[in-house]
Structures are given as C-alpha cells and as structure tokens.
C-alpha cells in the first residue's frame, strides 16, 4: 500500500533538480488505486502566488511549489498557519490565480474563463472546515445538497441524486434528512451534509481544508473513515489540508510539508512521519505525543512573515540543525545562510535541505 518503496530513496543526492518534468519525474511509485504510474489527476507546476500586503510589500504566500495529486490517492498538505497550504488549495481549485506557474487538471492547463472554471468546479469540489458556516441556516438539507446540481443545470433525477449523495456521505436513510435544517443536526451530520453537497456532482477530486478540525473528537474518526471510503469506493483523489499530522497518519498516502511558501519535504506518510529528514519536519513530528522521533524539539519563535522571506534556506533562522552545529560540522552552514534551495521536483519524494543533501552525498561517496 505504501508509496515509494521501490522508488529512489529520499536521500538520493540529485533529487532536488529544479526542472523535473511530470513524465520524467514519475518514479514508479505505487498508489492504492493505480499500479502503474499514471498521469497526475491534478498538478501544480512551479506555482507562485503573491499578494499585495499593506505598506507596498509583497507577500510570497506560495513561492514555487511542485505538487502532484495521483489518481485515487489521499495527499496531506501540512504545515503551520501562514505556510501557504490553504493558498495552494485555493489555487488548485481555481479560486486564486497563480502569479506564475500553473495548474494542470488531467494533464491540461487549467483555464480561467468563466465557463471553463464552472466546468472544472464540477470535477473538483471543496470541503471546508466549519460545516456550520458552510451551510445556509435557512436551507434544508435537501436544498443544500441540490444547490450544486441547480447551479450546474442538472435537473433530471434531482431527488435520486440528492438521496444517493446523502447516503454515500453516511446519512441514511437519506429521505429522513431531506427536510431537516442545519441547526437540527449534530456537527458530524452537518459535515456529512457538506460532503454530500460535494459528492452530488460526481467530482473526481475533493479538496478538504481541515475537514475535521471543528468536529468533536469521537466524531472525527467517522468523517475520516468516510473520506477513505469515498476514495476506495469511488476512486476519488483528495488533497487534505491540515495542521494535524495525526490525521495524515490516519488517512493519507503521501504528505507534503510546507514552510513559508515552499514544500520542504514530500513523500510517503509512512516514511516521512516515522523518519523525517528535514529539520522542520523532524521538529513538527517530535512535539507529537509519544513521538516516533526522539526528544521533543520545540522551535523558538514563530513562522516568519511571507513578506520578508529569509535568504538562503528559508528555515535557517529557526533551524535546530544549524543552531546546534550539525550544519557546521557537515560544512554546509554557509549554504544554509546564503544559498537558496531549488524547488523540489514534481512527482518524487524529496527533502529540501542542504544538510540532508550533504549527508546523502557523504554516504554515496563512501561505499
């Protein structure tokens, strides 16, 4: 089930080449639904999104991201708030226009015309964090789920489609919920209604932004199990944006960890969460309860501002490996401070870190 077991391992020194092409970059990774490397369902290529910030500054919210979503996989996009993960998700959905780079859906570049976007939004559905905010309190469950059908002008079999979507989302018997209002439902049921609203259009991709963060703990698992079931039964691909590494461990196949607009580490969940390479990922994993990674390493300070991205490796001001002298010992401390790292290539596991690259090279040089 795991990806990348036979692929090039994460420490292969030349993996950080900046110009990996989608085809060339496939490393034979196996995802549950597709044995052979398939064309990504959705991909971001050298994606850059900038915003104007007050005072004439520019926030580099997403600053060069290669990301592929393979058919039938669940990809977790993790990182602290402000790292750009939600902006990536919004851009993947066409809600945000890239400043540079682009999105491809099933191999074709995403078009931003009104008609093309509308068509795309049948295929790629968004599930938001807070189901209470996502539902109109004055619409019944039926209307909430049917809304997407009406927007897309699908009028045949509306009732059946709504009932089907509700039962796939685990609200059974569906008819019992048709006339309910959101306030009559529990938090878990509301999130199921939101998911049903996404399913009713038979999407190929679901992008879920913190799908269980506002739910009660005991209900959380049920919604996550539902997302996994949708993948298994309908072959949906999903990007799950989360700060919660436990969630990634629970349901995701691969994980991309973002820091300040860049992916710093990407690969299979099994590898990255049990043996993280990047010092930032290591720190994130280390503060988990019963962490698989040694002593908790609490990083000082807060994620820096996207309007003021540090030079060199953007993580270097907070990097425990640099502060602790490991980078110095490996002879890369100057690189950490001055040499910018290339963007991780598309479609491969990798770590964007001078120290990790230097160590891998050292291992390769001493056979």
């Amino acid at each position, binding site marked *: 089930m795991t990806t990348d077991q036979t692929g090039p391992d994460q420490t292969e020194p030349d993996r950080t080449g900046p110009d990996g092409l989608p085809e060339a970059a496939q490393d034979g990774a196996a995802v549950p639904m597709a044995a052979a490397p398939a064309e990504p369902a959705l991909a971001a290529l050298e994606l850059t999104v900038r915003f104007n910030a007050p005072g004439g500054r520019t926030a580099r919210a997403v600053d060069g991201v290669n990301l592929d979503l393979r058919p039938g996989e669940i990809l977790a996009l993790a990182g602290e708030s402000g790292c750009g993960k939600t902006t990536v998700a919004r851009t993947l959905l066409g809600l945000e226009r890239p400043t540079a780079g682009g999105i491809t859906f099933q191999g074709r570049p995403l078009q931003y015309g009104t008609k093309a976007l509308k068509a795309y939004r049948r295929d790629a559905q968004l599930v938001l964090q807070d189901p209470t905010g996502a539902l109109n309190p004055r619409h019944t469950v039926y209307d909430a789920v049917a809304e997407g059908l009406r927007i897309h002008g699908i009028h045949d079999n509306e009732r059946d489609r709504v009932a089907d979507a509700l039962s796939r989302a685990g609200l059974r018997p569906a008819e019992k919920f048709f006339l309910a209002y959101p306030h009559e439902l529990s938090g*878990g049921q509301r999130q199921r209604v939101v998911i049903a609203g996404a399913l009713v259009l038979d999407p190929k991709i679901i992008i879920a932004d913190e799908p269980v963060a506002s739910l009660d703990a005991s209900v959380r698992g*049920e919604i996550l199990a539902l997302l996994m079931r949708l993948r298994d039964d309908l072959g949906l691909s999903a990007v799950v944006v989360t700060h919660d590494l436990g969630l990634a461990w629970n349901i995701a196949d691969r994980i991309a960890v973002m820091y300040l607009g860049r992916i710093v580490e990407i690969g299979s969940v099994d590898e990255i969460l049990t043996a993280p390479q990047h010092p930032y990922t290591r720190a994130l994993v280390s503060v988990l309860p019963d962490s698989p990674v040694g002593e908790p390493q609490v990083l000082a300070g807060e994620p820096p501002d996207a309007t003021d991205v540090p030079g060199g490796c953007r993580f270097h001001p907070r990097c425990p490996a640099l502060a602790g002298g490991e980078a110095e010992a490996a002879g890369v401390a100057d690189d950490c401070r001055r040499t910018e790292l290339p963007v991780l290539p598309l479609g491969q596991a990798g770590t964007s870190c001078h120290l990790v690259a230097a160590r891998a090279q050292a291992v390769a040089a001493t056979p």
Partner: protein
Amino acid sequence: MTTGATEKDDTKEGSGAVRPTLEIDDLRITYRGSRGEIPAVRGISLSLNPGDTLGLAGESGCGKSTVAAAVLRLLPPGTEVTGRILLDGEDILAMSFGKLRAVRWAGASIVFQGAMHSLNPVHRIARQIAEPIVLHEGIGREAAERRAVELMSQVGLPSWRAQSYPHELSGGQRQRVMIAMALACAPQLIIADEATTALDVMIQAQVLRLLKQLVSERHIALVMISHDLSVLADTCERLAVMYAGRLVEHGPSREVFAGARHPYAQALSAAFPTVGDPAERRNPHGLAGDPPDPGNLPSGCSFHPRCPVVMDECSTATLALRAARDDWQAACLRVDGPEAVAAPTLLTKGDA
C-alpha cells in the same frame, strides 16, 4: 480587596498539612433556559493539591467548561448550583461578592481559548496585564506596568511588545499575554480552558511547555480543559474524562490515555492517533452516534446508546465511579478492579 489577598498569602506561607487548593464536592449545575432545565453537571467531585495538574477532557456539551466557570462563579444568573467548591478551604459558592472579586485573579484565574476576544483591542498590552495588579494590589499604574513587563519576559514575550496593541500580536503571542495576565496576581490555581486549542502545533508546544514550567516552579495547581486527550496526557499528571455531566474515568494520565477502562474514554483516546503506531495507520477510529443532548439524556449509563460493549443492565443501572485501582476509577459496569478504597474526594457521591 487587599485584605483578601494578604489573608491568602498567610495561608500559603503556612507550612504543615497540605490543604487542597481546590476541592469540588458533588457539584451539580443546572441551567435554566427557554428549553427548561438542563443538567449540565451531574455530581462531580475532584480535589487538587498545590502543584497538582489535572486534565479535564470531554466533548462539547459534556459540562467541562461549566465546571471551570463555576469555580470562579462565572455562570449566568439563575443557574442552579449545588454541592461545594472550596478554593484553599474557602467556600466559593457562599462567598460575598466583594470577597469573590478578590479571589478572581488573585486566588484563581482562567485562561480562555479565544485570546483574541478576551483582550481589549484599544488598550496596549502592558496596560491590560497591569489592570488586575492595580485592582488587587492597590499599587500605582506605573509600578504595575513594570511588573507587567517582567511577567511578559517570563512568558517569553519581548519587552518592546509592552506598548503593542493586541492586533499587532500573533495568536501565540496573544495566548502568552493571557497567561501573563493569569499569573499577574500570583494565583494558587490556574484553569486553562482550551487555552492552546486554536494554536499551531509548534506554538502549542511552546505554550504548553511554558505553562508546565511555571506551574511547577510556583507550585500552582493547574486544571487544563481540552477535548484533546493526547495534549492533556502529555501535560497533566492526572486525567479526568467527562461524559454528559459526569466523570466517567479518572486516573494517572499516561495510563488512562494508553489503557482507559471506560469504553468512552477508550474511544476518545483512540480518536487521537499515535503517529508511528502501525495499528492506527490508515485506520481512523470513530464512535458512531453523537454526544447526547444535555436536555434529553439517555437513561442508565448516559453512554449506553453509543457504547460498543453495551450490556442489558446498562440502560437501567445508575453508576458511580468504581475503583479500577487505588488511584484509578471508572464509571462502567464492566470495571471491577480491586476492592481497594478509592480516595474519597475522587468519588462521585450518590446519584440523582
């Protein structure tokens, strides 16, 4: 007000037998609203000595925040409260309002979840931290603001932030301001109600580490309320799990988290996967059903409609905590631990 503070200082200095900082005895709280009477807390007993840390876990509507609000008598008027709450031996429920004001901040303080909404947007940080100091210790504003800056450095905020407004701070920094305020009048008890829930993992780790350190340095008793069992298990020595207004499990936190006896506590700890545990990989655990409506509770054990191991008796039996071990209790018919007598303050007495 100052008398209240000095009185407590005396008792704090007095050595000898340990008097519990907080003693809650058969606390029952009923809200009265348009939907009639809602029993939010249905007989809870707890006790904390100086330096004790207790995690109070449960889902929304289980009554955990109601317990916190009751300790400082912050419940809406008309709410019926019975039982006893003793803060350093003094009965909170019987206290005059003037005395109560002295106890708030100086005896016990609460850190709430939404630091954004708890801070006044038009006052500078130092002034807000200084406010309870001015009120409780009767010292001048300038001296109080100097103390505020000291407190800020103790919680890891740079002193130049003293003249900032809340909106200029990040979420983690604002939460630190709340902790500094909670510490301002040197209370014996801090209640942290979902104090780190809205924070990022790394900032949460920073704030928790800080809280842990301050509590042990100053011998403060800490009640930490959260839905996140894994955070509580990591921060507190003891863990109490609430369901539908009652304690269903209470014991040493690492052990409860790893091997809860009550099926609900088991489900709750399973909801927080241990990253790296192969058993939980691609295997999210949930509990069917939803937390019960406090206005319409199931009969018998309130958990029985959702319980995966329910027995016939569960729908009728009324349950108190039973000893699973001498320092560990659970309210489940399936628990029959040693006959050892549990610490009496930990038991729920009687049943309605």
